[in-house]
Each structure stands twice: as C-alpha cells, then as structure tokens.
C-alpha cells in the first residue's frame, strides 16, 4: 500500500459536513486492492482455526445489553485508603467511592447457544458497569481480585485495570507491572481534572480494561472491560439542559456506549483463543458481549459511543442505508466541529462518538450496522473493502414508535483544540515499530518492566516520530496519560476537516507509515507505557516504559520514581 492510498482510505470514510459523498466503488473501484497486507496463501485463515467452533447462530436474536451505571458506596472503606500511595491526593479528595469485585461467572453470549460461557467481569457484569464521572469530582475505585486462582484457561487470574486515556497518575493508571493477585485489592484514584487544568483538554468517552503484563489480550478477552464516561457543564449528559452552555447531545437511554469484541467459542462453549503471536480474529462479532444483537431505536437522534475492544480486529463501520454518521468525538475527545462520515474506521482501542438520526425512518424499519473492512488474519486488514451492503453484519437497529419529543441537538461547534506550543518542545524522539527474532519490538527491543526507555521532563513538550518498520502488519499505537495531536502523517499535515485533526491516544500505522506527534507532559511524575494495542502484539513485548521526571533531576531516577503501588491484602465487604 502506498502512503497516499492509505490516507485516501481514511478520507474515504470521513467526509466533512456539507461535502458531497462518494461511495466506496467510486473511490476505490470494485475489487481494487488498496493494501499489501495479504499474507502468503499457505498460512491458515482465522476462520479455519480448528479451535473455533461454528454454532450456526442467527443474527439479531438478542437485544443489545446496556450496562448499568456504577453506583457509589455509602459506607467507609475498610481498610481506609492509604493517601501516601497516591500523588496529589489531598488536592483531589475523592467525592465518590466505588467498589468493583473481579470474579468469574457464567454468561450467555447468544440465546441460541445450548450452554453458558465462563467469563470474567466487574461486579458480576460483563462488560463492567459504566461510570458516569464529572469534571471537578474526583473519585476512587477499589478493585478486589476474587478471580479463581485455579482457573483453567488461557487467562491469568491476576489483574491491573487501566483506565484508558484518562489523565491519572501512574499508580492509578493500571500499569502492566502493578498487578493485583487473588485475595488482594488496589485503589484507583481518578482526579477527573483536565490535563494542565486546561478546559480544552477535557475528555468524554474512555474505557477501562485489564493491562496485566503478558496477559492483557487474554484477560480482556475473558471480559475485563467497561466504559468510563466524563461529563462537564457543556457535555452535560442532559439533552434538556436549560443552561445556554450545554451542548444538549442525546442523553439518557439515547446515549448508548457500545464495545465491539470478536470472539470464538470452542466446542465446549468456552472462549477460545489461539496462541498466534500475530493476533487473533474471533468467529463472532459481539456488541456489549452479545453476539450480533439488535437495538430498538426511536425515530430521533442517538449518541452512539463505539469502542473497538479488540483483541486484533479492525473495523470500518457503516450503515446499510443512505444514513451517515455525524462524528462528534475521536478517541473520547469532542471534535472542534462535527464531521459527517459515511463510514468510520476503528482500530483496536479507538473510540468514535457519533450521532445517528433515525427520524427519517418509520417504525418497523431496520438498519444493519456492518463492518466493511476485510481482515482474514490477526496481523491487520487485507486492505480490501467490502462493497456497501455486503460487509460483515455487526448488529441491527430496529425502529419503534417515538415516545416523546427529541430535544437533543448537535451544535456546530464542540471543543476547540488546545494550542500546540512548539516553543515548549525540549526533545524530539524516534520510535520504530518492528519485529525481530519472533518478537515484536519497539526500537529493536522487547518490553522490560525494569528498564526506562524514555525520561521526560515534567512540564516539557516533545515531538515523537513513530515509524512502522514492518512490511505486512498494522499497529494501533497507544500512548498513556497524555494525548497527542498529529503534526504530520507521512510528511504532510492533516487538513482541519480531517477527523483525526483532534486529540488522540491511539493511531494506526500501516506498513511504512510515519507520524509526527506533539505531546505536552504535565501534572504527575511517574512511569507509563506506550504500546501496540493489537493486544496480542502488546503481550508479545511490543511496549516501552517511559517516565515523567522532575526537570534537571540528574541521573537518580530510581530514587525519584517511587514504586508506590503494592497490592493490599483484603476481601470485599458483604454485599459485593
């Protein structure tokens, strides 16, 4: 694939509001190969994996599950939180406290299956409860490990929960090395304050997922994911908000978080995962952990928060109708302006918040959501795209009668981007993604939890050039803690109308791609990671550890970066 064609592909899916819309055929030509990711034909296809059983399940049988909103506890924690283990705790005293217990339980992936499947979840829910957090309202989540220590299967009953892309200190960021074993707990302190105190750095759709070193793919696949949504006075979560500042985006039951995972089941009905280090493709699409479900929608506007939960599949989502998406947020960040798109391309871990207006449909109509991206192996898409209407079916929307007025709006302007101040740049770095000796590498090395790959001065800005040195695979790169803006993609700046002209935490690099990113590191000291979010690649060492250090600290990092998290012994209180 040439760099140009890849950029075209991105543009195809995302046309600016008001622009005329081209179909896939017009842009690509039928059957045109836009990628070179096809691997030798003698390699097995994901669908031929003998471990993955075909149960001949029908589509659109089960309703889409909606995760409940997490409820805070109303009693004190026992033992109490240890403030010494958390940076800036006294500045951001938790106003709400939550408990989540990680357990194994049975789950019905599809009502046509003759059995239930063992999964892992939070408070016996998979995906876990959705958090509704508010800026200015710090919170604390205590998570207990009650997973079965003698679990038989690919996952490891040891967790560390990363709140993906949230701006939080290392000890609450769910670092791969900060795991919590059975019988222990850890407290996660989320300050719910924008980076640098800048309101333009506010976020909206984030998610939490397991990040256990070497076992992220396996543990996430077992079910350890959930949503964490942030609100403020503008994105207030109330479409009837009388405040003139409020965006009044669709809210309540019209605001639907949806996490996409693809899974395979063995003959015994249990989750099956291969050991292929390229990545894993499941036989079945699930949304909120139901296989190809349906959602009843009213003829009005909806806010859908799409998240690709992995492990390795890429999506280009489109509707089998003339309906467009109005994209309002990329990677959990409201865009400067809504962008109209025929399709949206989601790499692993990426999020898009979109508005879909069903008001043109009569009750009884149904619209299928499909994946137009062809992918036959875990390493990345082939580069080919299914024609509209012939993609793989993900879920169905069924229109039912309207129950009330639609007072929601889509403002012309959402959240401006924070200024890129190149004067603050103290360092430029080159990061090369590749493989060697059967192991995925970053700058030629595999992950080492004891090694510090980059030291970054607190308060400074940096420019990172990330290059995919591979010839065959795509890498959705994710950087923790601070978001980036794209300065250049393959040598060219993005147009302002590009949906990636936004703050981001995941960016996919195809073969030979190179990006230049701007970061500003603020607020906390400590170590975080950057890794490939094809979680199978991540587990096979495609990760680096970088640390924010005080300016001009000298070569004494070990003394400065205090290894705060040490799991604490304890069992959940009664009722959990």
């Amino acid at each position, binding site marked *: 694939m040439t760099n140009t064609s890849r950029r075209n592909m991105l543009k195809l899916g995302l046309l600016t509001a008001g622009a005329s819309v081209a179909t896939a055929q017009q842009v690509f030509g039928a059957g045109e190969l836009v990628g070179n990711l096809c691997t030798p034909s003698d390699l097995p296809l994901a669908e031929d994996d003998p471990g993955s059983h075909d149960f001949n399940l029908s589509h659109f049988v089960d309703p889409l599950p909606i995760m409940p909103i997490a409820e805070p506890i109303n009693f004190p924690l026992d033992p109490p939180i240890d403030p010494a283990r958390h940076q800036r705790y006294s500045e951001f005293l938790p106003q709400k406290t939550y408990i989540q217990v990680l357990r194994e339980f049975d789950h019905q992936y599809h009502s046509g299956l003759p059995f239930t499947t063992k999964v892992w979840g939070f408070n016996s829910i998979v995906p876990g409860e959705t958090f509704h957090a508010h800026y200015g309202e710090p919170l604390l989540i205590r998570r207990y490990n009650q997973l079965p220590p003698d679990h038989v299967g690919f996952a490891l009953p040891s967790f560390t929960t990363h709140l993906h892309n949230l701006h939080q200190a290392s000890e609450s960021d769910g670092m791969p090395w900060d795991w919590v074993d059975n019988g222990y707990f850890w407290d996660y302190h989320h300050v719910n304050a924008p980076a640098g105190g800048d309101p333009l750095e506010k976020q909206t759709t984030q998610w939490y997922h397991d990040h256990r070193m070497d076992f992220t793919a396996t543990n996430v696949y077992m079910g350890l994911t959930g949503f964490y949504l942030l609100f403020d006075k503008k994105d207030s979560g109330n479409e009837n908000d009388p405040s003139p500042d409020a965006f009044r985006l669709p809210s309540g039951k019209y605001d639907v978080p949806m996490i996409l995972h693809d899974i395979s089941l063995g003959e015994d009905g249990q989750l099956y995962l291969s*050991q292929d280090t390229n990545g894993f493709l499941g036989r079945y699409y699930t949304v909120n952990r139901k296989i190809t479900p349906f959602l009843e929608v009213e003829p009005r506007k909806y806010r859908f928060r799409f998240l690709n939960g992995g492990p390795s599949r890429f999506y280009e989502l489109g509707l089998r109708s003339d309906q467009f998406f109005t994209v309002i947020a990329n990677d959990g960040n409201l865009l400067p302006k809504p962008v109209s798109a025929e399709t949206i391309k989601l790499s692993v871990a990426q999020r898009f918040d979109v508005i879909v207006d069903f008001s043109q449909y009569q009750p009884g109509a149904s619209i299928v959501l499909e994946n137009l991206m062809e992918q036959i192996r875990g390493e990345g898409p082939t580069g080919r795209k299914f024609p509209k209407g012939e993609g793989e079916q993900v879920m169905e929307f069924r229109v039912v009668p309207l129950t009330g007025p639609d007072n929601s709006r889509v403002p012309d302007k959402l959240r401006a981007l924070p200024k890129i101040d190149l004067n603050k740049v103290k360092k430029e770095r080159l990061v090369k993604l590749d493989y060697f000796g059967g192991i995925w590498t970053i700058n030629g090395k595999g992950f080492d939890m*004891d090694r510090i790959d980059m030291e970054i001065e607190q308060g400074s800005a940096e420019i990172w050039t990330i290059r995919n040195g591979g010839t065959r695979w795509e890498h959705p790169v994710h950087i923790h803690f601070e978001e980036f803006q794209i300065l250049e993609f393959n040598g060219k700046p993005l147009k302002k109308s590009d949906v990636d002209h936004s703050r981001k935490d995941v960016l996919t690099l195809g073969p030979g791609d190179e990006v230049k990113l701007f970061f500003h590191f603020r607020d906390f000291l400590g170590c975080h990671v950057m890794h490939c979010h094809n979680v199978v690649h991540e587990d096979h060492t495609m990760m680096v550890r970088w640390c924010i250090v005080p300016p001009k600290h000298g070569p004494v990092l070990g003394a400065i970066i205090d290894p705060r998290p040490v799991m604490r012994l304890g069992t959940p209180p009664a009722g959990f």
Partner: protein
Amino acid sequence: MKSRRQFLTASAAVLPALALSACASTGAGKLIAASAESQSCKKPGGPSAKYFPNVVVMTHTGRKAWFYDDLIKGKLVGINFMSVKSEEQFPVTQNLAKVQELVGDKLGQGTFMVSITTDPEHDTPAVLEEFAKKHGAKDGWIFVTGKPSDMQALYHKLGAHGGHAEAGGHHVWRYGNEPYARWAAAHAMAKPHQLAQRLSWVEVNKDPNSKKA
C-alpha cells in the same frame, strides 16, 4: 558437574514418560511404523493439547519423546528455540542457563525447560548433549531435535509469527502451566530474574497469605 552416568540416570528419573509408548497423534502418526501400535495407544489430550504439535523428538540424552505428551503435559515449562551454530548471534542458551540457576530446586520437580533446535540436521542428540553440558544444563532442562519437518512444525506453531518463518524465533520464550492451560511469551533475552519470575506467575497459588504484599 555430574558424571555422565549420574546425568543419564537423573534424566531418566525426571522424564518417566520417555519410554516412547506408541501413542499416535495426528502429527506424529507417520513416524510410527505399525498402525496396530497406533490403535492401542492412549489418546493425546490435555488442557493445552491444542496448542502443541505432538511430534516425536529426540532429547539430548538420546531418548525419544512425544513433544506434548512427554515434555509438556502436566508440567510448568519454559520453551525456546535455539541452535548450536546460532548461539553466538543469539546467546539465548547462555541467558537461560542463568534462569536455570534461579529456578533452583524446582527444575525437574514439576518445572522444566525445553530448548528446541532450529537446525536439526546439525544438532543431533550427541551435539546437543555436548552443548547442554557446556552450558551446565541440569536435570529438567531438555534439548530436543528430530525430523526437520517435525522441528519445523514446532517452530511454526510456537516460534515464528504465525508461520512467518523468516521472522526468526530465537527470541521467543514461551512459558506456561500445562494443566491450567496458561500460556504466554516473553523475550528470551529478558533478564534472567524476569524470566524466572514469569514461571511463578503461572503457578497456582490458592493462599493469598503466602504472598508478600
């Protein structure tokens, strides 16, 4: 260093299943001459059977073994790829020798290290025995060779990127606990204590109080 006789005795003791029974499997059946033998054998199987080709291999002590049934099944194990000729370029065996020291008494007592050659034509059992000796391999660290096609099957399944043989597999160190079907991989050149620690991750420990918090 043990005497050769002691070494062989000890190896036999830790590998009781190596008296190759005629257990046929899909991958290895062709190596067994008599089909009657195949019919009489136990079915291969176990929590992790689907992940491992059950091919016949030769150990550095000159014994035949089923790769999965005899070397993996029921064990906590670290697996790597090596060759005598490539050790200079990929000094993985040197690194694993340090891991062996850290594993200590557990080696051979439920915990095993299996090193698979990628150069079976050169790395005969005798060559591997010499190589194992040179690196101070103790009981419970088994070097294996075999038919090139079988070694390739192991390599493609466990060492290379989904069959991309050109990617090379000398830096892959797979580890896991077979009865619990827990498997992961790390960099074979990671620090020895990090690799040894990983073996403890996949151990089953039901008593949280036994851990240091």
